[in-house]
């Protein structure tokens, strides 16, 4: 033996192995990652991959079969409910494990474990919002009822059965890139996923912190005009003129409200780090048989969310001898969330209601152990949060829980201003509830009564549940648990030193806005305010008005409707707000003061057909012009607050201009000595916009799709730049958040569904991704092109007798070990 050379080469070999087994910054562990028997090559799914399998599990009570069709949609047939959800859990994990794991970790405030120090503030915010606290109370509620516990536990076991069967080489690609391993599933993680949805949909629907700033610079009257409760052009979900019952609760405004609340000035330094997108919205509508060609109702739904690859949705059919349902599910949760069964169909849009308030807390001292409440020092409950950080030291945080909930903001978070207020969050999502059971019941509902019954316990995130049945009923309920507020309550942060500003009760469920079988033969919701001023409660929210106007406009003029008409409507690009705005812009623009580019764009936009399609140049010019106008009008006023308050809604600005276009005082730029008129502002806005437009035109990007560059990015790629090879970019899509086909840059219709409830159900659907979450599979993004083109797949409600149908490509057999055959 030659000792020295041996030692040297052995050390080099070992060193190489160690270096290549470790992740360096963004570089995955190259040895492990490149090994064709272990690394990413194992995720390169063969074109003719065989998904069929014969599996045995002791957890199963009976046997089940899963048939996969040519689009990789599983049709699950099980002997009983528990087996059904075991199979659903297993299938979700097989195709979407990484997504389930990472989303719930992030929801819990554990992103730093994977992303490192840059996610610490995100994690702290999740914890301070009480996401795990909320999930724990949901888990308790899920497990309180033995029947409910059995369903969720069966799902959990199914997920874990898959995780336990995984070999290192079979780990989803993302684990190999990021170098970590999946964690066991639990009912708590299902609850975390549902709370993540609650945060996305019912946490960004208030602006309490920003409004508290804004009211410093505007009078109450001005504030009400700029952020109005009821837009002039509102077409509510419950048609205008509906008479409401006398309210069961009449909340009383505290006597000190005028001085301590409405009249109080003082700046808020807190801002939210990960405030959900305000455009999280959706469309749904239903037309009665009286308006359709077939005589059967047609139900349509397209929920708008931040799009991602893999998608938030997974399409499947779930069938037992007693129930049969088809639609999209959320990987991480049992049940079908949006879909249809043999008797009914349902869909959801977000209610946009404000169900979250902030209360100012006075701590006795920095220990946060006691706070002043009803005249004495009350103990808080302190929750110590341990945030593990990849490649860095663990971070600890202490969150004080009060009668309202967690104190989200205090002296230690965030820490960049000196005069910190302590703000506790009162959020409906913290209250115990079991939203999953609503879907369990909806999946099995046979008629209107079953549907109405299923909704009753659904608390948060509040949704507009649209409904149609084979018996011809159509209906909509806005369902959620809503605080009964006195007028103005919860628009701003409230005093939290005694009970006087607390929520005084909840609106009784039966008083939630709802309609069944209206005369006009159709119902729609598109995130607008659910009712007009006749509704007897104060219901603030982040409502979106224009899409509902467009939908009503089209539906009311249609008769003999077919599913093809509905497809066209879901893909409609008509810009209804521009229809009202263009006359104002054209009336006030002073052509003589336009620079030459601006004149050119003015001529172009004069012939615009008001459609925001992908090739539309008019839409690009309009959007730039309008956005500039909003800034010209509002920026001088709004910029007085720090952090800057949200701009008024487009709809509000437009309505103000239509109402009082010459004297509107905000038109004057308060930072210049000159008194500007609307003529000046509109002209100035086009001149400013034309600079940007000319730049884009030079790059060949004046068409709307080229201008906004729609894309769908990998789930973890929040920057939309790190994992571009796993994304689909440069999609030929038009749309804005305010047109029916509400595609924005990467946010839009996440599932389009149309169900005609004729004797044989006729259903169509499409979502912008694919069934398989593996980027190495051809089923990763194979629906994207159809979705971009506005094409649909016919949805196949398979019968158990159709196992031999040629659409069945693969079959997974699930057998119980105990069963004798």
């Amino acid at each position, binding site marked *: 033996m030659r000792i020295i050379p041996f030692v040297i080469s052995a050390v080099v070999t070992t060193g190489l192995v160690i270096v290549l087994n470790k992740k360096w910054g963004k570089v995955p562990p190259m040895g492990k990652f490149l090994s064709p028997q272990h690394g990413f090559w194992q995720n*390169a799914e063969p074109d003719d991959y065989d998904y069929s399998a014969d599996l045995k599990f002791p957890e199963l009570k009976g046997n089940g079969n899963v048939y996969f069709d040519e689009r990789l949609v599983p049709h699950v047939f099980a002997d009983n409910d528990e087996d059904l959800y075991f199979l659903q859990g297993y299938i979700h994990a097989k195709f979407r494990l990484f997504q389930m794991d990472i989303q719930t970790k992030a929801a819990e405030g554990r992103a730093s474990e994977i992303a490192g120090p840059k996610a610490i503030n995100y994690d702290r915010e999740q914890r301070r919002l009480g996401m795990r606290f909320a999930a724990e109370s949901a888990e308790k509620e899920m497990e309180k009822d033995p029947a409910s516990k059995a369903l969720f536990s069966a799902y959990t076991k199914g997920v874990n059965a898959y995780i336990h069967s995984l070999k290192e080489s079979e780990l989803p690609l993302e684990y190999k890139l990021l170098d970590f391993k999946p964690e066991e599933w639990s009912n708590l993680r299902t609850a975390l996923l549902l709370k993540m949805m609650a945060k996305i949909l019912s946490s960004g629907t208030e602006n309490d912190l920003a409004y508290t700033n804004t009211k410093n610079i505007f009078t109450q009257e001005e504030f009400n005009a700029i952020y109005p409760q009821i837009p002039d052009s509102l077409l509510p979900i419950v048609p205008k003129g509906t008479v409401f019952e006398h309210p069961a609760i009449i909340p009383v405004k505290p006597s000190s409200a005028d001085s301590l609340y409405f009249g109080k000035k003082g700046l808020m330094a807190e801002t939210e780090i990960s405030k959900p997108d305000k455009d999280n919205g959706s469309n749904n509508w239903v037309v009665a048989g009286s308006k359709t060609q077939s005589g059967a109702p047609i139900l349509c739904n397209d929920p708008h969310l931040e799009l991602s690859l893999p998608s938030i949705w997974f399409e499947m059919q779930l069938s037992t001898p007693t129930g049969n349902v088809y639609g999209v599910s959320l990987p991480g949760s049992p049940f079908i969330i949006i879909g249809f069964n043999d008797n009914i169909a349902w869909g959801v849009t977000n209610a946009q209601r404000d169900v979250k308030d902030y209360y100012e807390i006075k701590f006795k001292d920095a220990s946060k152990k006691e706070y002043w409440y009803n005249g004495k020092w009350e103990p808080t409950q302190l929750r110590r949060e341990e945030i593990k950080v990849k490649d860095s030291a663990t971070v600890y945080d202490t969150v004080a829980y009060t009668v309202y909930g967690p104190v989200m903001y205090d002296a230690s978070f965030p820490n960049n201003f000196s005069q910190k207020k302590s703000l506790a969050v009162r959020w409906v999502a913290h209250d115990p509830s079991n939203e999953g059971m609503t879907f369990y019941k909806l999946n099995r509902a046979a008629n209107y009564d079953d549907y109405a019954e299923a909704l009753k316990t659904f608390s948060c995130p509040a949704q507009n549940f649209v409904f149609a049945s084979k018996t011809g009923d159509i209906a909509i309920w806005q369902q959620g648990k809503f605080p009964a507020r006195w007028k103005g309550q919860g628009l701003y942060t409230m005093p939290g030193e005694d009970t006087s500003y607390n929520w005084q009760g909840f609106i009784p469920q039966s008083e939630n806005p709802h309609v069944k079988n209206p005369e006009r033969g159709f119902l729609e919701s598109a995130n607008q305010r659910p009712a007009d001023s006749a509704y007897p409660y104060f219901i603030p929210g982040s409502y979106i008005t224009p899409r509902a106007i467009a939908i009503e406009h089209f539906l009311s003029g249609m008769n003999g409707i077919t599913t093809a008409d509905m497809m066209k409507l879901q893909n409609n690009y008509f810009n209804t707000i521009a229809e009202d705005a263009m006359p104002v812009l054209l009336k006030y623009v002073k052509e003589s003061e336009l620079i030459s580019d601006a004149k050119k764009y003015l001529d172009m936009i004069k012939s615009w057909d008001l459609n925001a399609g992908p090739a539309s140049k008019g839409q690009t010019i309009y959007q730039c012009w309008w956005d500039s106008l909003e800034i010209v009008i509002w920026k001088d006023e709004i910029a007085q607050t720090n952090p800057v308050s949200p701009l008024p809604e487009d709809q509000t600005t437009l309505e103000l201009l239509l109402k009082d276009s010459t004297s509107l005082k905000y038109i004057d730029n308060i930072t210049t000595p000159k008194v500007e008129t609307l003529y000046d502002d509109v002209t100035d806005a086009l001149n400013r916009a034309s600079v940007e437009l000319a730049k884009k035109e030079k790059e060949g990007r004046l068409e709307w799709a080229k201008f906004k560059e729609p894309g769908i990015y990998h789930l973890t790629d929040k920057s939309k730049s790190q994992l571009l090879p796993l994304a689909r970019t440069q999609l030929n899509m038009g749309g804005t958040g305010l047109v029916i086909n509400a595609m924005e840059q990467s946010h839009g219709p996440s599932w389009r569904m149309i169900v005609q409830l004729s004797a044989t159900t006729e259903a169509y659907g499409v979502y912008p991704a694919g069934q398989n979450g593996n980027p190495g599979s051809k089923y990763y993004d194979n629906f994207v092109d159809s979705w971009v083109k506005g094409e649909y797949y016919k949805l196949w409600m398979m019968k158990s007798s159709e196992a031999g149908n040629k659409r069945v490509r693969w079959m997974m057999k699930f057998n119980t070990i105990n069963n004798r055959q």
Partner: protein
Amino acid sequence: MKFFTAIILTGLLAFVGGLWAGWWIVAIAAFLIAILVHQKAGKAFLSGFTGVFLLWAGLAWWIDIKNNSILSRKIAELLPLGGHPSLLIIVTGIVGGLVAGFGAMSGSYLRSSK
């Protein structure tokens, strides 16, 4: 002759080992074969390198054909290798080959008499 025997045996043992153990088994496989089929250090390195290079690049190439390069194109963009699957296959082979080469060299020195 020894050279080719070593290449083939290294590739075979690394493949079989890879079915049971982690990716680093290629180093051990090359090390063991170098002890079994003794060659001078340089030659041992080359045969270890070549054996695993051929194994890894060959397997990757085969997987890539069956996958229509769906994944390799994405990974070759991420790493970044200009999005070229063939470059990614070669890099795969080189990484495995280097580890095996040094493993084999260690084996050769272990058995070497002077």
